């Protein structure tokens, strides 16, 4: 019940927000989200990090005619992603405190719905349930970008929606096909991922048209668009640029992770043969993405676009780590998912709060911000260092493990990817230099004056301090004590990498009545 | 009746005839511009069908065919009534019975 409560609590919050007087919406939402986060911390208590099984599971019949169940559970792979999602909700509520002025109620409802769907997709162990959450999460994000976004928000949001939808619908077909396979092979239809792991999916090496390869392509398309992997990334810069700060944060920090999580949960364990055979394609795209994203980020005139392309580059590392598929690289990739969530999330928050002050995202209009707002400068520098993987920050651990893992078996890819280390530093520092260093630009000066007249602070305000501090804390905590975080995932990842091709997972149910025997009352002929 | 068969007119003749009449009806609907003429063509099609029914009924040796025809005739009447009503209404409204006049909605 714990996980279900976790998933559906935000829905209830959304309902509550519907009836809260408009004056209190923000504070009530913040309180609720914070409560939700603290509630989710119970996971640390309940979770047994020494086991690789699906834990705290709950399974009840949902659509028994097709063997579809409401089946949720958590393991080392999804553990931190869940906490990351719950962690971000109160933060983005704080971050949007002043920037969201219209339709505040709707915004918070969307946000809560989004949280629910994201949690659901990380916790779902049933393929169809996963799909439902995965797909449904598009809707609130669509609204968040479309309603509270910037100038070209319509273009961006529709592009985002259709792009993502394009991939996921093919995944739907693949899910259905897997269900059909369970019926053929086990005599009973099942949408449980755990059953799918046991399937023998026909695979012919070297041929394009075979079941496993096609299914892999269908799944990968969905996740590759979500990640996004080069060359399917063009929706991302637009979506990020147009989204409001909070939207960008959630999009970058959690929603993109749904793609990499999908690779880890579905593609890699389900289609070992095909993934093995075709992994070079993914590796190639990942490496191209790393370099391409970095190169293109270097020439962006828009801060947010730069950060967005840096996301493309960083997500390339994660995919590289996943498809190299050894213990180091997968651990690194998982860690990098969190890192990217933290550092890119913080970057978007900072870019957002700068935008709130100056109403411009054009890099060339900035300059000398560090003199005008030293605290913002410090925060930005720290986050930049995390993003370019300076040791002692979180980013380093992930990137190092990914590169180390890649180097053991895929040397050329690792070497190519490591150029991203240099390029990453180049574009981030270039941007930092242009925006923060140098003489205060006219824009900064006038906006500073403007705020001073209004009696507002130009440097970091307390609310902003409140939501940036956790990020900065995490950046160092995760960088200096990665063991605290990795220990929860080690068992799962080790099991995953060691049982390639015969991956199976046990289930530990939260309690007796969380596992009802599922009667499959329809058996087709 | 025997005479008909004696001179070699069989079921197929009737069917072909009715098919021809049906086709004429179709052509009428397709190419006549006058709504009234189109309605008449529709009636022609229905009557071709009636012929088919009768022919089959006769050659199959059961009466159902004939009974069908009564139904069809009733329906045809109802259809004609409604069709004419619509025709009259639009003639009153638009002073026009050319089908090409009614192309407001398209695309």
């Amino acid at each position, binding site marked *: 019940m714990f996980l279900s409560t976790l998933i559906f609590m935000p829905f209830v919050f959304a309902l509550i927000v519907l009836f809260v007087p408009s004056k209190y919406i923000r504070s009530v939402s913040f309180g609720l989200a914070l409560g939700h986060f603290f509630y989710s911390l119970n996971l640390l208590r309940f979770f047994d990090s020494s086991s690789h099984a699906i834990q705290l599971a709950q399974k009840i019949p949902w659509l028994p005619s097709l063997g579809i169940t409401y089946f949720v559970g958590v393991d080392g792979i999804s553990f931190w992603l869940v906490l990351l999602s719950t962690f971000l909700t109160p933060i983005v509520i704080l971050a949007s405190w002043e920037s969201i002025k219209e339709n505040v109620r709707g915004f918070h409802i969307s946000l809560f719905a989004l949280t629910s769907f994201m949690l659901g997709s990380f916790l779902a162990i049933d393929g169809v349930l996963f799909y439902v959450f995965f797909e449904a999460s598009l809707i609130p994000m669509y609204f968040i970008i*479309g309603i509270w976004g910037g100038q070209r928000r319509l273009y961006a949001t529709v592009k985002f929606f259709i792009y993502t939808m394009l991939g996921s619908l*093919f995944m739907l*077909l693949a899910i*259905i096909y897997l269900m059909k396979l369970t019926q053929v092979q086990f005599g009973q239809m099942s949408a449980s991922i755990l059953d799918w792991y046991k399937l023998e999916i026909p695979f012919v090496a070297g041929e394009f048209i075979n079941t496993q390869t096609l299914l892999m392509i269908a799944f990968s398309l969905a996740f590759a668009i979500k990640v996004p992997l080069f060359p399917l990334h063009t929706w991302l810069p637009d979506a990020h640029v147009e989204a409001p700060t909070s939207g960008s944060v959630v999009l970058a920090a959690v929603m993109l992770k749904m793609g990499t999580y999908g690779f880890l949960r579905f593609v890699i364990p389900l289609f070992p043969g095909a993934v093995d055979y075709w992994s070079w394609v993914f590796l190639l795209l990942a490496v191209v993405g790393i370099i391409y994203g970095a190169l293109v980020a270097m020439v962006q005139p828009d801060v947010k676009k730069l950060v967005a392309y840096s996301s493309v580059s960083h997500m390339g590392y994660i995919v590289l780590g996943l498809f190299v598929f050894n213990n180091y690289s997968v651990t690194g990739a998982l860690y990098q998912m969190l890192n990217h969530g933290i550092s890119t999330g913080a970057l978007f928050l900072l870019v957002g709060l700068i935008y709130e002050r100056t109403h411009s995202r054009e890099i060339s209009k900035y300059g000398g911000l560090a003199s005008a707002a030293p605290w913002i400068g410090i925060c930005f520098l720290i986050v930049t260092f995390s993003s370019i993987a300076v040791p002692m920050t979180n980013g380093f651990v992930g990137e190092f493990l990914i590169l180390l893992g890649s180097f053991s078996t895929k040397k050329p890819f690792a070497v190519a990817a490591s150029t991203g280390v240099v390029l990453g530093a180049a574009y981030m520092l270039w941007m930092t230099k242009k925006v923060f260093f140098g003489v205060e630009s006219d824009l900064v000066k006038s906006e500073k004056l403007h705020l001073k007249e209004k009696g507002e602070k130009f440097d970091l305000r307390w609310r902003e301090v409140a939501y940036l501090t956790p990020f900065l804390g995490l950046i160092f905590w995760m960088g200096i004590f990665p063991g605290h975080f990795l220990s929860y995932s080690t068992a799962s990842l080790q099991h995953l990498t060691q049982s390639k091709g015969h991956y199976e997972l046990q289930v530990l149910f939260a309690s007796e009545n969380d596992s009802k025997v599922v009667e499959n009352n329809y058996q087709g002929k | 009746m025997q005479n008909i068969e004696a001179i070699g007119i069989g079921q197929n003749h009737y*069917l072909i005839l009715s098919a021809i009449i049906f086709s004429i009806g179709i052509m009428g609907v397709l190419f006549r511009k006058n*709504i009234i003429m189109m309605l008449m063509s529709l009636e022609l*099609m229905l009557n071709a069908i009636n012929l088919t029914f009768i022919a089959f009924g006769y050659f199959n040796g059961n009466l159902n065919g004939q009974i069908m025809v009564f139904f069809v005739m009733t329906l045809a009447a109802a259809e004609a009534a409604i069709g004419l009503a619509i025709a009259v209404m639009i003639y009153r409204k638009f002073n026009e019975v050319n089908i090409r006049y009614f192309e407001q909605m398209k695309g």
Partner: protein
Amino acid sequence: MESINHFSWLDVLLVSPALVLFFSSLIPLLSKIFNGNRETNSFSVLASALAGVVTALGLTVTLGSTHKPAFDGMLQFDGVSFFVSILILLITGASLIFAKENTSSNNHQFSEFVFLLLNSAVGMLTVLWANDLMVFFIGMELMSLCLYILIALSSEGKLSKEASLKYFILGSFASAILLYGVALIYGMVGSTQFSQILESARELILTSRIYLFGVVFVILGLCFKVSLFPFQAWTPDVYQGSPSPVTAFMATGVKTVCFVVFLKTLKILVVGLDSSHKLIEVLQWIAALTMLLGNIAALVQNNVKRMLAYSSISHSGYILIGLIVSGVSGDDFFGSASILFYLASYSIMTLGAFGIVSILEKNYDMQLQVQDLSGLGKRSPWLAGCFTLVLLSLGGIPPTVGFFAKFYIFSAALKYQLIWLAIWGVLSSIISIYYYLRPIVFMYMKNEEGAVLPKEKTLSFGVISASMVLILVFGVMSQPLFQWIISALGVH
């Protein structure tokens, strides 16, 4: 058909829902006549009509799902007809409510309107129950003829008349073709009763060209009614020109009934489509082209009703996939179940959609454009929310019922290796997302103010809200509905 000595009151009881509908349809008309051709209070007209519908619904539910022939085997009652007749009665009730609160239908001829609508519903029920090609045809004509006039009854002066004329000419044309098919089948089988056709179909379909012609004619006649390519051309024009409540009624009721009959006739006339793979091929192409054409053409529409019409065409394509599955799958009912599920969910969504359009129309000659919706999200959040939900559901996005409808259809398709159709369906539904999102964009994301401002239309609001609830409930818990359909199909 020897004599009527099998007549029993039980048969009358079985058809009593239709009778109740018919008699209740007379009440407003009679009261108008006795009032000296003056229109009585539209509310009381509605009340009496609704009372009839509710009584019919009550009778249907009470009679339950029986498997009985009636009237000498002319009618056949079974689980499917039970399920669908409930659906039809609900649709009728909802359409009546919309009609009462829409200016294009609630005019000085509202009594006539109600009379015709209820009789059209009677026609639908007849079609549903028919166990004989001729009865089926008569029911269909009753349904259609009423609709022709219903469209023309609109207060709106130009487009509705044109729509009525178009629908009448094309409908009659298609009916004639269908009837010709009936005649040919009759000629070959010697009877029009389904049970007798079934006996000889397996042999005839392989040997007799004329029978095959007949089957093709009947099927294509049905294709016209459910607006499949290339017989879809009338749909946008007619849907656009008709009063919105009538459109709602047509788009849901007619399509549902005709698809059910389509399913029935396909099974009976062709006896397992495997014996006629050519026909299957044609139907596959029809399905593919219909989905594609409907979705692509809808992309460029600005008129909301016209857009929904094209969307309805594309949905027919999806349903046809299920139909093909149920054809090739022999006695597995998964295809049939998926169709029925799709029809039910499609009806809920489409009723909601046209209901909202009906509410939004300021006056009878308003052509609702997408641009008119601008800013609706602010002015009328509830209605905008409902429309959003409907559109997302039509687009098949979870967690709505539309998603599960597509899910079942695609499941069925993949189960019987119709992979390319499933992929085609997926591709075209991606196209569809664009136009389903467009009104949402206008409602929430445009700053300018649109033309529409919904007035207090409580009853319609109620119906729309109910359909929203159903969309969500069945979206989250589609099992009960699906279970019901499976049991209606006679599986235990």
